[in-house]
């Protein structure tokens, strides 16, 4: 046995977490005799692997299995460990620390490693029994006990900790709801595309996920009973876990007069503002950064040990990577994954496997990575990222990972291959995938025409032609060359029709879902595809799809038309072009009150108020609403106007009440979103003063009834309508108009007006569906009526509520900050 040096220096450590644990390993290995070590730990236990608490919670591991240093280790190395003892003060002048059980211990060197404390949102009820945080073994034990009830748990926070807690509690048999403030889960580590996949996987475990949800209060008498959200929802709860974030624990250091910002400030040697006091772990702030993961803490541990041995090395900060430890969910994220002009992204999606990978490259170096579903190459990418390795030579195959050996490119047919046999391909004739594939095989079909003749698929509106071609390609292999459909935009190879059909066939209900399942090549789309997808989803899932206002052109987002000077114009609806003195008075008052410079009669038989400031829009609308007026959608890919003439009410030639009918049609169809703008007109006789024969849908009244015309336009392209049919009653006019609009809404490509869609599929086909087939017409009409239930709420009235403030109010006003 070697003789210990006469005067061992006294090293005192506050906190016995993972960071000082690693530091001590280095110290006892490299300088075993230098210090007499004393450690205080507020937790009544040895050093354990905190990051493995989640497997303990889910029952996959026991506490014993996650202990890092057992009691024996401390004895073996001559380290004095005070378990369950909290250091309450540091006396820097006397160089001692004192504890909550009355000890006063001197130090030569002091290390602070107090970790961090969980954030608690101070809502009413936050300190009720049954409300826990997720930080240490006591929390886990309490959760396991609570879970024995098999009751309901609410986890507040959809970040790493919250989701691990939720998965663990679900594993223990509780019914779990995750309440998350942001729109996507783990938004700090994941982009929305990966967030979508994660949400799906979490929900697949029977865990309910509420995003965009703000907790208002925790309810209960002497124990937690429910969580109440801002929108009034009440979630019954026997257990509430708050996992919304952590705060570096710098209180002790601050009381001792050390420099503490967000965390305890240390230099590159891990020394605080007092040369004899060092710090490491989650409690520190180094070069402005605080860390919440172990990898950087371990790097700090190595540096701090060297400093204690008087060997100069420097810590220069860390790049971190995140993994989620929920069995069966593979997710990895590292670095900076925002886009910028000097960056490129490489995206790989495999919808069938639920894989999403995205690398962000800058100057031939990886600077960020998000991987979902297949994270095997995470470490490899991360290494390249940290090294700043030049990837120019690997670029083409980089995304396929380390083991890539000349494999295949992403498969453009994958989305269609992955469809189940009963997925409907042709909506018009109700033909599913299985039937088409069987027909191709049995009848040895080789082209679309053959499929049309045999199965009727693609024989009607033709919007599924692209899919039928892909099925031919899949079934026949190389033997078939599909005519490439024109892609929607650079983000996808699929055309509009394919996307529309696949949204229905695969039941896709959000924009991230479409982008993942149809393997979009970008992470969040572009200004071309996003508005189109938003429309397709609204038209396909009325009442279910939540409109994404950020995917709308500004006019539709604020329900007014942007003008060349950045002001807006406001056009109230004037049903059928008829107004009243009261409405006119209200319009005049609004124009005066808000200094509206131009009041103009539009070409659509109503009045336009031009030059309204954006901030004034809500107030302008409120006044117009008060007088009973609603938005005219003069800006929308939506129903615009129904122009009328005076008809039998006044005109000596009038054959029917064209004004009354126009008003009825407008009241029935307003609010409907359509692929492009939709205008209608009703003329009282063939003199056609309402110009009905250049409208998308025009009605011309005659003695014996009503002619229904479609496909007119009078803008860039002037086109006279085609006569669709003649009907006898107003009720029929309504049914035909509704059915026609619905058919157009369901089949047309975004931004195609009716005439374009009609010329593509043929007037005959429209006639077959709407005129000849009464059952189909009534079904279309029924779907139109259903979707109108969700469409006819005045957007102006909605937007004058405080929830919309942030769209209209400036965020801050700094104009007074300037010299005069």
């Amino acid at each position, binding site marked *: 046995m070697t003789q210990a040096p006469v005067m061992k220096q006294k090293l005192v450590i506050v906190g016995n977490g993972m960071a000082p644990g690693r530091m001590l390993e280095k110290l006892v290995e490299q300088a075993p005799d230098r210090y007499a070590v004393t450690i205080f730990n507020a937790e009544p236990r040895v050093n354990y692997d905190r990051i493995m608490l989640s497997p303990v919670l889910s029952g996959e591991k026991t506490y014993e299995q996650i202990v890092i240093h057992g009691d024996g280790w401390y004895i073996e190395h001559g380290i004095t460990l005070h378990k369950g003892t909290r250091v309450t003060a540091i006396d820097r002048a006397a160089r001692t620390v004192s504890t909550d059980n009355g000890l006063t211990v001197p130090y030569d060197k002091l290390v602070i490693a107090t970790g961090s404390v969980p954030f608690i949102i101070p809502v009413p009820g936050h300190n009720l029994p049954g409300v826990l945080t997720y930080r240490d073994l006591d929390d886990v034990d309490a959760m396991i006990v609570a879970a024995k009830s098999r009751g309901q748990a609410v986890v507040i926070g959809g970040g790493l900790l919250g989701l691990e807690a939720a998965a663990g509690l679900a594993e223990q048999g509780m019914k779990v709801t995750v309440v998350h403030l942001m729109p996507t889960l783990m938004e700090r580590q994941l982009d929305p595309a990966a967030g979508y996949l994660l949400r799906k996987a979490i929900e697949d475990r029977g865990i309910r996920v509420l995003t965009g949800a703000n907790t208002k209060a925790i309810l209960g008498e002497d124990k937690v009973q429910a969580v109440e959200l801002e929108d009034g929802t009440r979630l019954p709860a026997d257990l509430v876990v708050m996992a919304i974030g952590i705060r570096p624990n710098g209180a002790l250091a601050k009381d001792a007069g050390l420099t503490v910002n967000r965390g305890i400030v240390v230099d590159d040697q891990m020394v605080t503002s007092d040369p004899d006091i060092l710090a490491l772990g989650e409690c520190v702030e180094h070069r402005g950064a605080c860390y919440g993961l172990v990898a950087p803490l371990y790097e700090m541990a190595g540096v701090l040990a060297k400093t204690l041995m008087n060997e100069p090395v420097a810590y220069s900060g860390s790049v971190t990577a995140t993994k989620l430890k929920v069995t069966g969910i593979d997710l990895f994220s590292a670095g900076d994954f925002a886009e*910028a002009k000097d960056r490129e*992204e490489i995206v790989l999606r495999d919808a069938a496997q639920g894989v999403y990978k995205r690398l962000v490259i800058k100057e031939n170096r990886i600077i960020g990575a998000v991987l979902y579903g297949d994270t095997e190459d995470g470490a490899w990418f991360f290494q390249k990222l940290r090294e700043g390795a030049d990837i120019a030579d690997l670029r083409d195959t980089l995304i396929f990972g380390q083991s890539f050996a000349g494999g295949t490119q992403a498969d453009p047919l994958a989305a269609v291959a992955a469809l189940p046999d009963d997925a409907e391909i042709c909506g018009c004739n109700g033909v599913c995938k299985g039937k088409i594939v069987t027909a191709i095989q049995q009848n040895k079909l080789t082209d679309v025409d053959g499929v049309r003749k045999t199965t009727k698929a693609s024989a009607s509106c033709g919007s599924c032609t692209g899919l039928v071609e892909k099925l031919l390609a899949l079934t026949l292999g190389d033997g078939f060359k599909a005519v490439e459909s024109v892609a929607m935009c650079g983000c996808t190879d699929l055309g509009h029709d394919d996307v529309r059909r696949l949204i229905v066939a695969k039941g896709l209900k959000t924009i991230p879902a479409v982008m993942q399942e149809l393997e979009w090549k*970008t992470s969040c789309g572009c200004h071309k595809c996003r508005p189109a997808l938003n429309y397709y989803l609204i038209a396909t899932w009325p009442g279910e799809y939540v409109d994404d206002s950020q995917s709308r052109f*500004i006019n539709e987002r604020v329900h007014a038309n942007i003008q060349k000077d950045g002001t807006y114009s406001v056009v109230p609806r004037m049903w059928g072009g008829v107004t009243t003195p009261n409405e006119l008075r209200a319009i005049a008052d609004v124009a005066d009150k808000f200094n509206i410079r131009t009041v103009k009669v539009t070409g659509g038989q109503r009045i336009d108020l031009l030059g309204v400031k954006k901030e004034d829009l809500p107030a302008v609308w409120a006044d117009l609403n008060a007088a009973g007026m609603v938005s005219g959608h003069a800006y929308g890919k939506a129903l615009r106007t129904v122009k009328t003439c005076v008809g039998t009410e006044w005109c000596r030639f009038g054959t029917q009440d064209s004004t009354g009918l126009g008003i009825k049609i407008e009241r029935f169809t307003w609010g409907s979103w359509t692929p492009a703008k939709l205008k209608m007109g009703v003329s009282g006789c063939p003199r056609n003063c309402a110009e009905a024969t250049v409208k998308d849908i025009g009605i011309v009244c005659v003695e014996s009834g009503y002619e229904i015309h479609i496909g007119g336009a009078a803008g860039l392209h002037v086109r006279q309508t085609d006569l669709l049919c003649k009907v006898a009653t107003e009720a029929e006019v309504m049914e035909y108009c509704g059915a026609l609009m619905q058919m157009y809404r369901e089949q047309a490509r975004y931004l195609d007006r009716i005439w374009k869609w009609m010329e593509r599929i043929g007037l005959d086909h429209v006639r077959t569906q709407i005129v000849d087939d009464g059952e189909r017409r009534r079904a279309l009409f029924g779907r139109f009526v259903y979707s109108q239930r969700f469409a006819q709420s005045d957007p102006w009235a909605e937007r004058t509520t405080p929830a919309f403030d942030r769209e209209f109010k400036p*965020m801050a006003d700094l104009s007074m900050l300037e010299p005069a």
Partner: protein
Amino acid sequence: MDSTATGFEIGDWIKIGVVSDIPARGARVVKTAQGDVAVFRTADDRIYALFDRCPHKAGPLSQGIVQGQTVTCPLHNLVINLATGAAEGEDAGCANRVAVRVEDGRILMSLAAFARRAA
């Protein structure tokens, strides 16, 4: 001008709000004596600021559609890079940038751009 006289608490930077004040893939406006500044938030919560004037015909960029790291001008569809202010692709022109940074969820805007112009 002595900035403290305005009642604002400033160094070189001034707090203009918090990240969640801006919708993701959206923008809000900050009024200044030199005109509006558009503050953008991307899908992955990056914050950028540009003077709210498109280099083409002064369209209000704050009203455009935000995708990735770019915004499409609402008037004639110029695509502007948020980080550099420059128009993407074939288009020319550059919107003026204003430095912003985020600290603990708070958005701070640099006053340098205003000071220099005012001087």
